[in-house]
């Protein structure tokens, strides 16, 4: 009978759609897991490395201060990234980009921080090694 055939067709369609949606969702889920199991990246030590790089500087400063921040990166995006990473390591100290503050953190990719300070007309207070330094703005 036509009514029965229509009902049968509807039921088959519903089962098909149910199977399709469950299959698609499961496929995505399992493929995501397989992808994660296939790739095994090295542990992320970058933050730990950055924290260690700034640790001595942080411990030699008071708990609350707003410092300037300078870097030797020419790329604005990289400079901004380095500022953000330095801020994360040096929290709760605040870093304001530029050399307008009395004390300025230098974050350089090279170790001759004194030379960098001379270029920027800043007085070196202390070299913490690994391209990290504390400068003072010269009194005018």
């Amino acid at each position, binding site marked *: 009978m036509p009514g029965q055939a229509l009902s049968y067709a509807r039921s088959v369609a519903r089962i098909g759609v149910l199977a399709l949606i469950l299959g698609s969702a499961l496929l995505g889920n399992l493929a995501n897991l397989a992808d994660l199991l296939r790739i095994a990246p090295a*542990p992320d030590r970058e933050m730990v490395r950055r924290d260690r790089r700034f640790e001595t500087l942080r411990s030699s400063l008071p708990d*609350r201060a707003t410092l300037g921040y300078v870097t030797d990166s020419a790329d604005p995006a990289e400079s901004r990234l380095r500022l*953000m990473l330095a801020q*994360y390591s040096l929290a709760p100290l605040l870093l304001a980009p530029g050399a307008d503050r009395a004390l300025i953190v230098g974050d350089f990719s090279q170790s001759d921080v004194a030379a960098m300070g001379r270029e920027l007309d800043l007085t070196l207070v202390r070299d913490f090694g690994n391209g990290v330094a504390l400068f003072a703005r010269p009194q005018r």
Partner: protein
Amino acid sequence: MNSGLFSGVLIAFAAGAAAVSLLWPAAGRTGAALSVFRLALAMGVGQGITACMMFVFLVVHGRVDRTYIFFELLLLLILLGLYVWTRRRRVAETARPRPFGGSTSVWLDGLLALALGVAVVAAMTSIGILVHRIAYGDWDAWAIYNLRARSVFRGGYGWRDAFSDVVVWSHPDYPPLLPLCVVRAWLYAGGETSDGPRAIGGLFAVATIGVVCAAIAVLRGRVQACIGGVVLLGNTFMLRHAASQYADVPLMFFVSAAIALLVLHDEFDSGEGAGALVLAGLAAALAAWTKNEGALFLAVLMLAHFAIAARSRGLRAYGRQLAALASGALPVLAMLIYFKSAVAPAGDLVTLVTGQSAFAKLADPARYMTIGRELLQRAPLYDGLGIGIVYLLALYGLCFGIRTRESTGVAQATLTLLLLCAGYLAVYLTTPYDLSWHIRTSMDRLLVQVWPAFVFAFFVLVRAPGEIPWAFGKVPERSAG
């Protein structure tokens, strides 16, 4: 996870469970699904309540220290004491959910349960792997939320510097629920451990899955919950984002919890028991305490509630319901207002938009085209395999049909989600940033915020397999109730 951190998680859960039981007492045996819902709710609400307590402690005491733990334990004892004292009061019978029948056959039940089991194991394993690998979270995690947590945790009496506009790029105006959860975790753990934020992110992800699946099971039965659960976990972006340590994860919990509670209240609570509404108000306010989008969610939820409840129940009943919603929301809202006015600087979107022509942008058709194009690309959740889930859901809805007699709760939930999406559209249209950049860096996350609530509303609205006649067997009879 060290024992201190584990204790902190347990205490937050206990606080959440006490609050849920106090505000929404259950009448006798509640059944497995409702019990799971209440437990999952307690997991997330507990974190929210203790984050609020941390903020109050900071404002009153002036700094974070281990005195907070004593303060929190004291408040927990008070909550538990209240719970024991009020336990004997009579509870309206309508707090018990109506039993819902509707499985087509044992083999389909078993198959769907197996599918859900496989989906849950795969999803939890994926989340676990990523949580382990991404120790410090994705970009915004260390640049915004964990930075804020560090600044508060290390800042002593200078904790307010964490919200200074010197670090305007880290959005110091963002509500502080997630950073405060992390601060609290570190306090219990005895130091800054990457386990803290990882545990919190994982907890909210698991709680979201529990809330959505359990709520569907309560309202539409086990079979529908299994289907909804598999679909929910088919969003691979959500699974990956669960380990990001972003505030989108707690936000999606509070959005789905508030929506589910609205619907549950309408289905089961009588006029006497408005506990689910109080919790819905609390969850919505905690969403606002989590991200600025949460404030939009709270506003549209109240609007949708007014639009539907006032019309269907009358103003008097609406007034009673509004009082219940407000009683849950107001304490957190008061804190948020204090935070925004006395602690945080103005938001960058607000600051920049007021200086530019929002109306000109609203009238620019090119912006609508850009947003529409990106939405068509991202919303179907096509990740290169199979077919986009959203397209399949549309087909599923067509094949199974919509329940025609629906509670006002479901209508409120649907309207809330629509208004929320409209709000997001308005933000994109008027954004002061480059539109393509703004969409590229945020749309996927906005979609994932509403995904669990959308799945919940969809599977409550669409007929369950047991509700329709099948050609292969008898229409199953519903259980009495």
